[in-house]
């Protein structure tokens, strides 16, 4: 459910991401059939790709392991996601692979690289959008 939560939350900001000259792209490690179902279930309109080999995950430094899936912090993240209405579906991909977020400029330079430490560990959406440059995006609840 963390992946659903993360993608949907960022998808809400896709217009702002587009205004800043960028695209929001999801990469998963399951098969294409999982990705298609995910797109339809979550109503994602931005591009989705898959890397079943996870070579890109390894190359970009993303972690994998049992502790990241079962840590105590994961329970806190689970409570947050459940409160937002997300529910765990069947695992569709490598359950021990952790993810991350990168903001990459057109020349390939990286302005943000966030590697999740445990399941449910995501950067705040405002930080991701702000890494694109332009005025900082206010965090939810903060004065504009």
């Amino acid at each position, binding site marked *: *459910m*963390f*992946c659903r939560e*993360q*993608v949907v939350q960022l998808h809400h900001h896709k217009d702002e991401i587009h205004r*800043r000259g*960028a*695209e*929001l*792209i999801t*990469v*998963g*490690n*399951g098969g*294409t059939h*999982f990705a298609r179902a*995910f797109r339809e279930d979550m109503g994602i309109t931005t*591009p989705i*790709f*898959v*890397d*079943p080999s996870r*070579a*890109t995950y390894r*190359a*970009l*430094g*993303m972690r994998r392991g049992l502790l990241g899936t079962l840590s105590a912090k994961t329970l806190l993240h689970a409570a947050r996601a459940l409160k937002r209405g997300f529910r*765990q*579906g069947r*695992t*569709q*991909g490598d*359950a021990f*692979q952790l*993810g991350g*977020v*990168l*903001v*990459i*400029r*057109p*020349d*390939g*330079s*990286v*302005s*943000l*690289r*966030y*590697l*999740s*430490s445990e399941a449910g560990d995501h*950067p705040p959406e405002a*930080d991701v959008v*702000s*890494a*694109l*440059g332009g005025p*900082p995006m206010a965090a939810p609840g903060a004065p504009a």
Partner: protein
Amino acid sequence: MAEGPGVPALRRTFPCYMTPMDRISSEVARLPVLDLDGNPHPLGSLWDGRAAVLVFVRHFG
């Protein structure tokens, strides 16, 4: 394009904001990802001509 204004502070606050890669290497940019039709694309094509927010998810469940 300048780095996002809040990111340096975030590196001090959140350990997950590791010292960033300065740039994606050409070797990594050549790694393939598959579109929903199963067609391979080099990773670097995802930010070709414009910036990209890449969200690598754990899995689709």
